[in-house]
C-alpha cells in the first residue's frame, strides 16, 4: 500500500494562499471603496527597498521590508491628510523612489539576481512556519479590527467629514487600515512577489462589486473570490509547473474578466 502526501513546501504554500486569501480579500473591500487600487503597488515596491537593504546588511530582509512598508503606508497617509493630496500622488512618488533605492542597494550588495527575483515575483520555497504564524496573527487582527469598527469604517468610506462630525476617530481608523494593509502586502510578497501582489488586493472586491449592491454580500463574495483565485492559481501552477505568483495573478485576471460577462439576473 502506498500513501501520497503533499511536499512540505507545497503544504506551506497552500496554507499561505488560504490565509492570504482571507486577509487580502477582506482588506480588498476597503481598497476598492476608497479607490486605493495603487496602494498595494506603492507599499510593495517600498518594501522592495527594505528587502535590498536587508541583503546589503547581510540580515534577513523580512524586518527591513516590513519597516519600509509601514513607513510607506504612514507617509502616504500623512501626505493625504496633512497636505490634501490624493493617495495616488504619494504612491507615484514613493513607488519609483523606493524601487530606485532598492535597485541601487541591490547593486551595492553584490547579491544574486535570483534573490531579487524571489521578492519581485514570489518564491513559495521561502515560506516558513514563522511566516504562516505571522499571516494567521495578522489575519486574526484584521478580522477583529474590521469586525469591531465596521460601522465607523463604512461611514468613513462614505464621507470622512460626516464620520468626524459623528465623533468617529477617523484618523485612528484610517491609519490602522493603512497599517494592516502594509502588513498584509509584506506577508504576501513571499507568495506572489512585489510586482504581482496588487492583483490579490484589487481583484476580489472588484469582482464581488459586480455581483452585489450590498456591502455585506460584497465582503463575503470577495472572500470567496480570493479563495478561488489563490487556491486554483496555486494548484494550477503545481500541476502545470508554472511560477505560482504569476499563475495566481493570471487566474485573478481571468476571474475578473469572467465577472464582466453580463448577468441576466439583477444584482442582489
Amino acid at each position, binding site marked *: 500500500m502506498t500513501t501520497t502526501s503533499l511536499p512540505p513546501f507545497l503544504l506551506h504554500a497552500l496554507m499561505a494562499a488560504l490565509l492570504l486569501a482571507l486577509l487580502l480579500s477582506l482588506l480588498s473591500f476597503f481598497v476598492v471603496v476608497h479607490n486605493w487600487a495603487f496602494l498595494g503597488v506603492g507599499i510593495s515596491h517600498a518594501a522592495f527597498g527594505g528587502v535590498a537593504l536587508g541583503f546589503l546588511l547581510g540580515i534577513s530582509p523580512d524586518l527591513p521590508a516590513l519597516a519600509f512598508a509601514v513607513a510607506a503606508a504612514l507617509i502616504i497617509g500623512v501626505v493625504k491628510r496633512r497636505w490634501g493630496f490624493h493617495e495616488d500622488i504619494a504612491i507615484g512618488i514613493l513607488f519609483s523612489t523606493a524601487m530606485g533605492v532598492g535597485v541601487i542597494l541591490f547593486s551595492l550588495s553584490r547579491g544574486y539576481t535570483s534573490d531579487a527575483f524571489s521578492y519581485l515575483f514570489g518564491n513559495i520555497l521561502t515560506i516558513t512556519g514563522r511566516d504562516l504564524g505571522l499571516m494567521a496573527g495578522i489575519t486574526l487582527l484584521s478580522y477583529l479590527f474590521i469586525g*469591531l*469598527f465596521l460601522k465607523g469604517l463604512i461611514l468613513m468610506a462614505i464621507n470622512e*467629514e*460626516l464620520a468626524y462630525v*459623528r*465623533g*468617529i476617530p477617523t484618523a485612528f481608523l484610517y491609519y490602522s487600515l493603512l497599517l494592516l494593509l502594509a502588513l498584509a502586502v509584506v506577508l504576501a510578497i513571499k507568495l506572489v512577489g512585489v510586482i504581482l501582489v496588487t492583483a490579490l488586493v484589487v481583484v476580489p472586491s472588484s469582482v464581488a*462589486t459586480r455581483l452585489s*449592491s450590498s456591502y455585506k454580500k460584497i465582503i463575503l463574495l470577495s472572500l470567496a473570490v480570493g479563495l478561488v483565485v489563490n487556491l486554483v492559481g496555486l494548484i494550477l501552477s503545481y500541476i502545470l509547473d508554472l511560477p505560482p505568483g504569476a499563475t495566481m495573478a493570471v487566474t485573478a485576471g481571468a476571474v475578473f474578466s469572467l465577472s464582466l460577462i453580463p448577468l441576466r439576473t439583477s444584482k442582489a
Partner: protein
Amino acid sequence: MPAPAIDLKKVTVSLNGRPVLENITLQIQEGEFWGIIGPNGGGKTTLLRTILGIIKPRGGEVRVLGISPKEAVKRGWLGYLPQRMTGRNFPVSALEVVMLGECNRSNFFKPFQREEREAALHALRLVGLEGKSQEPFPQLSGGEQQRVLIAMALASQPRVLLLDEPNTGVDVVAQEGLYQVLRRLREELSLTILMVTHDVGVISHFVDRIACLNTTIHFSGDPWGAMECDLLEKLYGEPVDVFVHHPQCQGCHVLRSKSHDHD
C-alpha cells in the same frame, strides 16, 4: 434667556495663509431657518465647517447652544449634510445610510440595534421615503438621495441642522420639494436650520432669515432685504438678476434687476 443656537463673535478664519472669513458676527436663535448665500469661494462652506469644529478659527469665538462646537458634536446636537458626498456609489441601502447617521463615539463599534433601525425608519418617514428604505442608495434619484442624506442628518435627533448646498444635482421640481420638507421639519421638530445655497431667489420663500456672505457678512436679516440689487451686486461683484420661482409654479419672474430698472 436661552443661549442662541449658533453664536459667532468676530470669527476670523484663514486657510493656507489666505483669509477666508473675516470678522463674522452672527447670532441664530433656536428654531430659526436661515439661508446663507454668496458667491463661490466666499466662505460659505468654511463657515459651516467652522461651526462644526472641523476648522479652528484664527480669532473670535464660536458657540453652539452655549457650548463649544467640539462638545456639541460629542453630544450629537449637530446634524450635517456636506456639499460633496464622496460615497454616493457606496453599496448600501437607503436605510443603512440613515442608520449610519446614528453612529456616535459610544456606539460606532457595536452592531446596529433594533432601536437604531426604528429611528432610521422614522427619519425616512419624515422625508417621505419610508417606501424606499431597502433600495440601494446609488440607484436612487438625485433628489431622493438628498432626502435620504437629510434623513441621515436627522437620525441622530440633532438640535441644529447644517446643510451645505442640499439642492446639488437636484432638478427644479425636486428642489421645491426639498425646501418644503425642510420647512415642515423645522415646524414639526423645532429644528434650527442653517442652509448654504446658491438659490438666491427661491430660498427667500422658505427661510426666516438670510445672511449674505463673501468673506465677511454683507447683510443679515429679512430674506427680502437681501434681494436689493445693490447689495447683491456688492456681494457677487456684478449685476445680479433675481428670479423668483413661485411655490405653486404659477410662473417665474424677475423680482429685481438693475438691467430691468434701467429699461
